[in-house]
């Protein structure tokens, strides 16, 4: 990414570079938006709809979205399901393993805000955006695969406005994760994915 950032910066500073920059942005945004490989971070009920989405009835591969197990090659993490305090470090770890540029879709009420498990519980995170930058939220408990399809198209529209220049790229400021009681959250999660 550093290479792309430098390229973007030097293009922006040079005379006439912005013409090249905008066309480069257009090409890259278009290809990135149309080739969103997903990391299925399915933890609970929504994972069923996430599986259904890539199978015969809905077939997300038509749009170039297909699930990959290894986080290094994927572009979008689809967090589907409740994230508990025990799971949060592992989700964060997988997110950190993903290569830039990366995006995140929060699928279902639990991932959006904690949903039905928001109140009265001692172990559920109130939404995955308390420790991850989320691009698209899908409501529903669980959302239908069509809703996920719409989210992918929304994300595509969002990507089409991004630039490779560092100042304007999609750099997230990571919020600190909520600690489990007593001990800091990092470093206790799962190895690799």
């Amino acid at each position, binding site marked *: *990414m550093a290479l*792309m950032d430098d390229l973007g910066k030097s293009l922006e500073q040079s005379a006439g570079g912005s013409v090249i920059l905008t066309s480069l942005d257009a*090409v*890259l945004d*278009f*290809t*990135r938006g*149309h*080739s969103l490989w997903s990391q299925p971070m399915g933890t609970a009920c929504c994972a069923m709809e996430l599986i259904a989405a890539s*199978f*015969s009835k809905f*077939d997300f*591969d*038509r*749009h*170039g979205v*297909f699930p*990959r*197990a*290894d986080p*290094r*090659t994927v*572009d979008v993490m689809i967090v589907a399901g409740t994230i508990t305090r025990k799971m949060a470090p592992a989700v964060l770890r997988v997110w950190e*393993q993903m*290569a*830039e*540029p990366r995006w995140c879709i929060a699928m279902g009420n639990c991932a959006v805000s904690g949903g039905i498990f928001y109140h009265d519980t001692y172990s559920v995170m109130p939404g995955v955006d308390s420790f991850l930058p989320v691009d698209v939220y899908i409501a529903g408990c669980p959302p239908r695969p069509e809703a996920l399809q719409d989210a992918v198209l929304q994300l595509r529209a969002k990507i089409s406005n991004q630039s490779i220049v560092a100042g304007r790229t999609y750099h997230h400021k990571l919020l600190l994760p909520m600690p489990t009681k007593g001990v800091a959250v990092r470093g206790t999660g799962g*190895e*690799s*994915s």
Partner: protein
Amino acid sequence: MTAFWQGAAYGLGAGIIVGVGTIFGVWGERKVAGRIQKRYGPNTAPVFGIVQLVYDLVKLLTKEDIHPTQAKRGIFNIAPLFLTTPIIASLVVIPFAAGWAPLDSSIGILFFLAVPSISVLGVLLAGWSQGNTYASLGGLRGAAQMVSYEVPRSLAVLSVVMLAGTLQPTRFVSEWRIWWLPLTFIAFVVYFIASIAELNRGPFDLAECDSELVGGYFTDYSGIRWAMFMMSEYGGLVATTLFGSVIFLGAGWPFTGALGVLVLILKTVLLVVLFMWAKWTFPRMRPDQLMSTAWKVLTPMALVQILIIGLVIPWL
């Protein structure tokens, strides 16, 4: 200096074949898999979804290239080259048209069997250098499997070479007769199965099986380096099937010239589809079963084929 430019031209040509083969191979895989699984595969991109692969390629090339902290950096960086280079190099001995191969060597067939074996090194180095248990297990599995399956594969090819009496690909093609087809059928089956294992494809994709080892020996690779692994896999697929159609299916037979080249490509595509069919139908084998298949089933089968041909040759 001429030799240098010649070599550069061969390399470029073979690189283009591998690149185009990769794009069409991945596209074909996704389409074939889709059809087998009652869905469509990529179809919203232009031209039946082929352009989808261009999107994927451009995206992969501009993606971040991650170096994990626990990786051995130098080896991590060059390991993918060990995989792609032998595949590209091996293509130079393929007789694309009747009587013409880019490098018409007198030991061309031996060259083809020997050079891609170097990619075992790439698998081993890639797996080891990442400092990741999934990758090292995958690398070890892959190396063991590729080394073992060299044996039945070479024996199968050897049986056909016995019939032709030459190791020179162009002469081999002109020697080829249609009645070899039933005679060398066992060898063809052995070659087919052993090649699947050699390429780490399903049902022998133990080295990269995502249900156990996540990404296998290239778990921690991203962006362009990961694309090189894909290129070696599909380039290898193209090279193996090309070679298989030359050795067992008589290259351009019954045509020569441009039509012959077309027929060769057609046979290759047929074999590729067969490979994909096998991948998307069968479950995966276990490492120990895979090894015993190589040594206890395929190698004896190839030896029996050699025996049969050895008995037939005096009567020719």
